[in-house]
């Protein structure tokens, strides 16, 4: 337990013409002081004049301190006036007096005035530099100068500082935690740890002064379920097929690159249109993905725009089904332009294998400098959006939270050659055919015996 005296460091006069202070430094002392400063009031009788002592350094008390009591005091007396004068101290926030405080008028004998108020320490200290002791100065009569002598003022604060504890938290695997790393807390503090996983498995540990405290964390709330993970996948490779493929070999590539401008124009040069396709591979998209967008960016230009014959067109196809609008290069113009070919009918993951970028050659052609196709997809997953844990800091305790287990609803491992390997798909043979299972967790069941084949 410690006791500290906070004393003022400055003062303010409401009127500098008729109020003055001599030996001001004597005010900046505690109430044990025997030297005083003098406030001279030479103005007519009025209660609107005051002196305001402030500048208490609340920072002298550690921020972690628990204040058990505090007392605001002023030591002063008045002289040279009749008993009808009035010097009354108040507590103030800024220039406004605080209600709810009782004190007595300063008398002609030096005494310590103690303020009895309904305010708690948090309120008083929260005023900071605005907090002060205001003493209204009202002299008795027009013809008599009055004086007030101030020995000092103080706030005597008794407090204790709890033992500091270092809580260190960390996360392994995916996700974030807050706070992370080493942070200082004090006995009685409530430590709150928020865990935001970004995948289905991560482990959080927390230690207090090096001792594992994870098991002492109290879970308060797990947020909603994160249901999707977004991904955009670019085609892996492609190749030409079709009667016009030879015209375009090496021109359409993986990537839109206008610098590869072709000086040649490609057309069927006949009334018979030629068609070639550009096959695309998206094999790395998970089978349980939901596709939300498919589009291609194609850069090229038309040979001409002034002829009425057919021009080269591009379109997304899924097998023989048109899944996008057909864009005519005549509409693009003769300058290289990147167009976006948007699928209006979204294919499924399995249908991606038969999706192609189809080019139809007209009598007049165009140049394609490059093309890249994208599939935007979502993969459903299931894990808590976040967890919040609290822990009341105390002397010897410990914690350790493992995120996983129940969250890993769609992950299955099998030990192969001594190592655990993640299972991507599971099949059950039914009537002689292997049937893929959508729910990996339902493949195995309790009460059934299994053996390796």
């Amino acid at each position, binding site marked *: 337990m410690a006791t500290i005296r906070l004393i003022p460091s400055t003062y303010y006069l409401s009127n500098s013409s008729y109020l003055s202070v001599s030996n001001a430094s004597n005010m900046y002392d505690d109430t044990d002081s025997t030297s005083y400063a003098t406030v001279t009031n030479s103005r007519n009788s009025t209660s609107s004049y005051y002196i305001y002592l402030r500048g208490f350094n609340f920072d002298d008390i550690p921020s972690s301190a628990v204040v058990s009591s505090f007392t605001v005091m002023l030591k002063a007396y008045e002289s040279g006036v009749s008993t009808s004068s009035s010097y009354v101290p108040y507590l103030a926030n800024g220039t406004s007096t605080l209600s709810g405080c009782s004190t007595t008028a300063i008398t002609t004998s030096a005494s310590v005035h103690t303020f009895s108020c309904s305010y708690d320490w948090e309120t008083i200290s929260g005023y900071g530099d605005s907090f002060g002791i205001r003493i209204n100065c009202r002299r008795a009569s027009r013809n008599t100068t009055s004086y007030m002598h101030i020995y000092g003022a103080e706030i005597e604060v008794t407090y204790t500082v709890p033992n500091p504890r270092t809580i260190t938290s960390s996360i392994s695997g995916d996700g974030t935690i807050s706070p992370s790393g080493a942070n200082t807390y004090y006995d009685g503090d409530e430590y709150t740890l928020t865990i935001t996983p970004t995948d289905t498995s991560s482990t959080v540990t927390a230690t207090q002064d090096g001792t594992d405290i994870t098991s002492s964390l109290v879970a308060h709330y797990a947020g909603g379920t994160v249901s999707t993970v977004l991904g955009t996948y670019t085609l892996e490779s492609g190749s030409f097929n079709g009667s016009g493929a030879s015209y375009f070999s090496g021109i359409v590539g993986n990537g839109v690159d206008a610098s590869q401008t072709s000086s040649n124009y490609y057309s069927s040069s006949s009334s018979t249109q030629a068609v070639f396709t550009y096959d695309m591979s998206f094999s790395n998209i998970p089978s349980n993905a939901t596709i939300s967008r498919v589009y291609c960016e194609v850069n090229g230009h038309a040979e001409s725009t002034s002829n009425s014959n057919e021009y080269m067109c591009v379109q997304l196809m899924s097998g023989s089904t048109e899944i996008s609008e057909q864009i005519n290069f005549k509409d693009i113009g003769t300058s290289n332009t990147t167009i976006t070919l948007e699928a209006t009918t979204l294919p499924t993951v399995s249908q991606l294998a038969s999706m192609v970028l189809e080019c139809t050659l007209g009598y007049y052609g165009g140049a394609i400098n490059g093309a890249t196709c994208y599939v935007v997809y979502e993969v459903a997953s299931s894990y808590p959006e976040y967890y919040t844990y609290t822990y009341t800091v105390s002397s010897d305790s410990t914690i350790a939270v493992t995120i996983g287990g129940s969250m890993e609803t769609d992950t299955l491992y099998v030990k192969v050659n001594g190592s655990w390997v993640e299972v991507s798909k*599971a099949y*059950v*043979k039914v009537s002689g055919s292997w049937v893929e299972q959508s729910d990996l967790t339902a*493949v195995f069941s309790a009460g059934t015996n*299994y*053996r390796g*084949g």
Partner: protein
Amino acid sequence: MAISKVVFGSDTLIDLTSDTVSADSLLSGYTAHSADGSEISGGVEFVTYYTGSSTPSSSTGSDGDIYLKVVS
């Protein structure tokens, strides 16, 4: 009445009394004799699981079996 122990003179020719085999610990399709000498038939069924990095061949396994395709 089932016989679990046979003693000839001072010689014990057969003694099943300490055997622990039971129907629920014996593979289905096999028979044995329990500690009291009675014949029991195995009742333990297994589901066979296979692992591999590609899709399963139709010639692999039989109905009810499991195939786990692992991440390669």
